[in-house]
């Protein structure tokens, strides 16, 4: 499969668009992570943001108090997140379906007051990540610290890097035995167990793969925002946006979350900029339309937008009869 390098946008000072790109890639990456547990293993996880937060805070703490380089901190964040995930998830895998889903919500609800009051992470007053002044762009790539202008571009590429890594990893998993086990658990848990698949183990593995990805995402986010606040990293949108991206694009499809993120985020940004501003500001009109768009997509294409016959359309566009496309 061709590795894609989306053409970067050399915006002359319009760094905002790079940030939008960054957010798209970040959410796409998170969406792929969520897809592992939600799409492949078929378990609803409504509280993945706790791992996002754990990642962000761990990396921030390692960086601030121990002076670790950002990339090392990222590794540390992932390790901690996976460990916590395994510990928390294994007991809960006794629950099935919606019960499991509420358990993940429960974890998220428990995380909130911890985040707000735990003094180690400074509670609701947040942790600020100091940025050394000066330093070149390359230095920035190495330490995730960008003073000044290079920031938007730098983070765009970094998110692209992590996103690509995640995508490749996910693709590898999808085609591996692991992926097969996940799907077995999703489609027929009892049947899977009958042939000797330990469904609990694989649920844990799936969730912890997601936790790793979310932790990496959280770390990247923390260094981008330069501050980690509990209500920001545990925010409900980090729960639902990756999920929505996956569902919009097509649950369980590798590229599903990517398509979903590409569609959802620019739309909401565009709406906010146009309808959420000016004389209509404060009336939430942009969100009304956003909600309506979501409902339309959901009602029209409940299996996700990837289920549209893209290949056939492309073939017709090129003047060829709608033949079965070769798997690319």
């Amino acid at each position, binding site marked *: 499969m061709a590795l894609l390098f989306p053409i970067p946008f050399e915006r002359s000072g319009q760094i905002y668009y790079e940030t939008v790109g960054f957010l798209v890639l970040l959410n796409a990456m998170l969406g792929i992570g969520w897809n592992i547990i939600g799409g492949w293993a078929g378990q609803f996880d409504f509280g993945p943001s706790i791992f996002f937060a754990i990642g962000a805070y761990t990396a921030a703490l390692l960086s601030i108090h121990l002076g670790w380089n950002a990339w090392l901190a990222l590794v540390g964040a992932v390790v901690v997140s996976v460990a916590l995930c395994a510990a928390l998830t294994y007991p809960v895998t006794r629950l099935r379906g*919606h019960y499991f889903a509420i358990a993940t919500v429960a974890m998220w609800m428990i995380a909130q007051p911890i985040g707000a009051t735990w003094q180690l992470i400074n509670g609701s007053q947040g942790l600020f990540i100091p940025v050394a002044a000066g330093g070149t762009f390359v230095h920035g790539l190495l330490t995730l610290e960008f003073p000044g202008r290079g920031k938007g571009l730098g983070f765009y590429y970094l998110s692209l890097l992590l996103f690509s890594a995640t995508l490749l990893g996910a693709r590898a998993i999808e085609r591996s035995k692991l992926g097969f086990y996940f799907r077995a658990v999703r489609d027929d848990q009892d049947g899977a167990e009958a042939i000797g698949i330990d469904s609990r183990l694989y649920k844990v593995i799936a969730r912890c793969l997601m936790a790793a990805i979310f932790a990496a995402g959280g770390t990247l986010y923390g260094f981008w925002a330069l501050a980690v606040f509990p209500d920001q990293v545990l925010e409900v949108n980090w729960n639902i946006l990756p999920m929505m991206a996956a569902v919009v694009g097509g649950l369980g499809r590798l590229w599903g979350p990517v398509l979903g993120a590409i569609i959802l985020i620019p739309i909401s940004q565009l709406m906010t900029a146009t309808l959420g501003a000016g004389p209509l500001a404060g009336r939430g009109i942009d969100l009304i339309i*956003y909600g309506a768009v979501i409902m339309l997509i*959901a009602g029209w294409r409940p*299996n996700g937008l990837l289920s549209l016959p893209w290949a056939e359309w492309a073939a017709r566009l090129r003047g060829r009869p709608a033949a079965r496309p070769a798997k690319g």
Partner: protein
Amino acid sequence: MTLFLQALADGLQMGLLYALVAVGLAIIWGLMEMINFAHGEFMMLGMFGAWGLSVWLGWDPLVSMVPIAVLMYGGGVLVYRLLMRRVQRGEVFTQIFATVGLFFFIQNGVVAVFTSDYRFVEKSFLTGLSGANITLGGLRIGIPLLVGGLIALALFLILYLLIDRTDFGLAMQATAEDRDAAMLVGIRPQRMYAVAWGLGTALVAIAGVILANFFSVYPQAGLSFTVLAYAIVALGGFGSILGTLLAALVVGVVQSVTAAYLPPAFKDAFVFGSYILIGLFRPQGLFGRF
């Protein structure tokens, strides 16, 4: 000791109010297994309905409860027919997605019309009773909350009888358990789902009307109750109406008692912690059927 007993009493009272909010969800989600992110928004619409009718027509919420319930029943059926029925053709997860859209749509629709200011139902039967207590053995029981709680119990009883004791209710359960089999015996699933949505929405709107007597009315009001409602339905067990009631009481008590002795910021956390704990021993909730 009085602190504990009072907390227990307070918790039971709040539990009944939570039950009121959760009962609608118990039907849509607990019974028919359709995820509804926008549940709290329907409650909020009920609150605004009560406030609006109180301000413009001077109707007491206990009176406006009826027309609002009827209206919202229709609304729920409409949501099902227009949106959820189509969504059902796809993945289960798409229901989340669709109802998230509904959530944004409704909440901001209300913001657009009413802005985010807080509003209060000022003159009503129940607010007139505010502060009135009866004292039972040294414990204070607030009368307005008690009335609200009794209404909740009444609704639960009606619902329980409807679902568990009538043919119609059995048909709904059948559809939830096995849609194809239900069709084979002549039940029309679409109709069951539509009714479920209608009932669920109407019930939670009633909850909103009652709650409007005690709480500020504003577009974001749904959230804090909704999250608890989800925990309650799951804790009670899917498919069990009585389970939801019991779970609501448990939640109310846990919340109240932990707030009395432990850091109050964690009281919801303890509720959810209890859910996980109980879930470890009873994975299908207290009385869950599936």
